[in-house]
């Protein structure tokens, strides 16, 4: 019996190409300024057109500055970054692609903007030239990150040429304890199965803890599927999904909604569906997670300590631990709570939605960022998240506590814009990658939930946020 992935695959399978590749029909492609210019150029070079322009939706996010935004594109000081945003603008105009530009309140991180607009819908196939496209799997949509050649391929043919992945079930029993969130669940899973644990698989997240997550939580969980090696992660459709979607600008309404709903309700795995592999976790046993190293799998509970290479299972792992500890400026067996922070970043496609900001604000309300912390940034995921957070008073809470309240974009998650770490600085970050230099040359990233980042900003070092609730 089919899994959810099998169903979406079958519904989008156009056929097989003569060389054996399957052609999978793509409903939606999200575009941004960094991985699309070469694809548009390739299209022009070959004299090709977009196959279906209304299947594309664009917004600049990766390199846009998070301050001085009233000036729009002219406010981008970096000439090479500016050129990418200008070129995206030109390409969208020339090809008739809808874009939320820098001055549009709907502009934001592609993976926040798409769901927020209702562009992301159950049963869809979605691609974007960004690995965190897996985020949209929260809606029971098959969403995959692709390279620029594939971006161009989808532009020109509305199809992806690929082979089917295997099915992996991740079953999460129990309920998440207070102070433990979807981010902790995802990091704990990656710690368990490793960053290659789900390579060549599509993950489906199942179980009580997953059903109990909000759409925001499910997006965080699916977002991090790629850090477990899976190109896509899925959560089956239920009332939570439909409640979120209803009334969004691009969601269907009236009789179309009813037709859509009947289809969407089928976007679940059959009860006796077979998976090629599986992993399981008990949510109730989880604690707040903190990464200590340079790969998302280098993670442990806040109550724990850094590992010791002497206890590694093989020499490749021991080398990896030693190298990571050296890069991070940490000792073996060092308590996580002793790690002092220079900067705090609350943002990214992983954790910059309204729910994330609410949780973080509830922790910092009435408190102050520690004087030892040089900078604490809050970067909302989209202009609409920013607007809603301001209307609720969250922005005031953050600024009163000493946080900087910025404009939306990817920002310090990958530091393509001016927001970055200096060499040697430790950052508590709600983003998704703690790779060497990811947040700035020589920077040291610790991935945590928004609540943990907020508490760390106030304490100046990691603390167990469960003690603050």
């Amino acid at each position: 019996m089919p899994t959810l992935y099998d169903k979406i695959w079958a519904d989008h399978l156009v056929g097989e190409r003569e060389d054996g590749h399957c052609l999978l029909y793509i409903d939606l492609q999200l575009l941004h300024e960094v991985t699309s210019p070469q694809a548009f150029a390739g299209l022009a070079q070959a004299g090709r057109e977009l196959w279906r322009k209304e299947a594309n939706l664009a917004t600049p996010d990766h390199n846009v500055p998070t301050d001085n935004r009233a000036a729009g594109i002219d406010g981008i000081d970096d000439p090479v970054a500016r050129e990418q945003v200008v070129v995206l603008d030109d390409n969208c105009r020339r090809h008739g692609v809808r874009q939320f530009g820098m001055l549009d309140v709907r502009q934001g991180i592609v993976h926040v903007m798409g769901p927020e607009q209702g562009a992301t819908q159950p049963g869809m196939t979605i691609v974007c030239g960004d690995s965190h496209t897996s985020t949209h799997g929260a809606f029971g949509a098959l969403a995959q990150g692709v390279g620029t050649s594939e971006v161009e391929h989808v532009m020109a043919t509305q199809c992806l040429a690929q082979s089917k992945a295997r099915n992996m079930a991740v079953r999460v029993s129990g309920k998440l304890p207070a102070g433990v969130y979807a981010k902790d669940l995802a990091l704990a899973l990656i710690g368990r199965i490793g960053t290659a644990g789900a390579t060549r698989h599509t993950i489906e997240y199942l179980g009580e803890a997953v059903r109990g997550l909000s759409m925001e939580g499910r997006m965080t969980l699916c977002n991090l599927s790629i850090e477990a090696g899976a190109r896509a992660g899925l959560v089956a459709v239920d009332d939570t999904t439909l409640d979120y979607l209803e009334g969004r600008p691009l969601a269907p309404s009236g009789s179309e909604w009813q037709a859509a709903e009947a289809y969407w309700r089928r976007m679940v795995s059959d009860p006796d569906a077979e998976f090629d592999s599986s992993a399981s976790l008990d949510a109730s046993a989880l604690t707040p997670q903190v990464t200590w190293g340079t790969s998302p799998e280098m993670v442990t509970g806040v109550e724990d300590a850094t590992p010791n290479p002497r206890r590694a299972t093989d020499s490749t792992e021991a080398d990896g631990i030693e190298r990571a500890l050296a890069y991070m400026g940490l000792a073996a067996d060092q308590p996580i709570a002793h790690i002092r922070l220079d900067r705090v970043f609350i943002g990214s496609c992983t954790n910059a939605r309204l729910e994330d900001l609410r949780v973080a604000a509830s922790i910092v309300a009435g408190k102050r960022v520690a004087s030892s912390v040089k900078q604490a940034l809050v970067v909302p995921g989209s202009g609409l998240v920013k607007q809603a957070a301001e209307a609720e008073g969250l922005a005031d809470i953050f600024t009163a506590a000493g946080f900087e309240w910025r404009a939306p974009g990817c920002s310090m998650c990958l530091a393509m814009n001016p927001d970055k770490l200096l060499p040697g600085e430790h950052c508590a970050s709600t983003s998704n990658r703690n790779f060497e230099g990811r947040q700035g040359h020589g920077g040291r990233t610790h991935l945590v939930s928004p609540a943990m980042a907020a508490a760390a900003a106030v304490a100046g070092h990691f603390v167990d946020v469960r003690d603050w609730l």
Partner: protein
Amino acid sequence: MKAFRRETGLAAPLDRANVDTDQIIPKQFLKSIKRTGFGENLFDAWRFLDEGDIGLTPNERHLNHRFVLNQPRYQEAGVLLARRNFGCGSSREHAVWALLEYGFFAVIAPSFADIFHENCFKNGLLPIRLDEAVVDDLFERAQGDGGLELTVDLEAQRIELPDGGEIAFDVPPSARHKLLEGLDDIGLTLAQAGRIRAFEASYYQRRPWLRRGAGAPEEAAP
């Protein structure tokens, strides 16, 4: 795309697991609208001691002489020997463009991350998966005196070693055919355009709510 049949080159051993695409080509070099110009900054944060940026040329920089690709014996290497989960992380195809432009025609590792693996085939960089024990052996030889020159024969799916030994490898038949012929992927799919149109006709009839898509540009918006 250039066809790939048979290539010979020296192997450079990059002895670490989970090498991510942020290391292969750091983010500051992604601020380009071209597919070229990335080779110079391959593994930038490892090859150089100082922070690189667009516009800085290598002779203005401080080389990290300890990094494997900077060692004189591995200059002109054509095969990158790597450890498990090579190419994880970001989907940036710039990583593959950088490896090719630097001079690599193949990467050998026990495993690759999915998106990177796919991106390789789209550009004619050959990713070769071999058992961990076989990779261990190649590392030992590449690090030994005299290094290791490899001939990669895609047609025969075989690596030829200097001592006459051979290692067989597998590449998905569809990808192999495309590489051998240097075929244009989009052209192959567009040969099926009629089929895609026919699929769409019935697809949107059954799912009318999807027809509108993301909509058209709003002219009034800035």
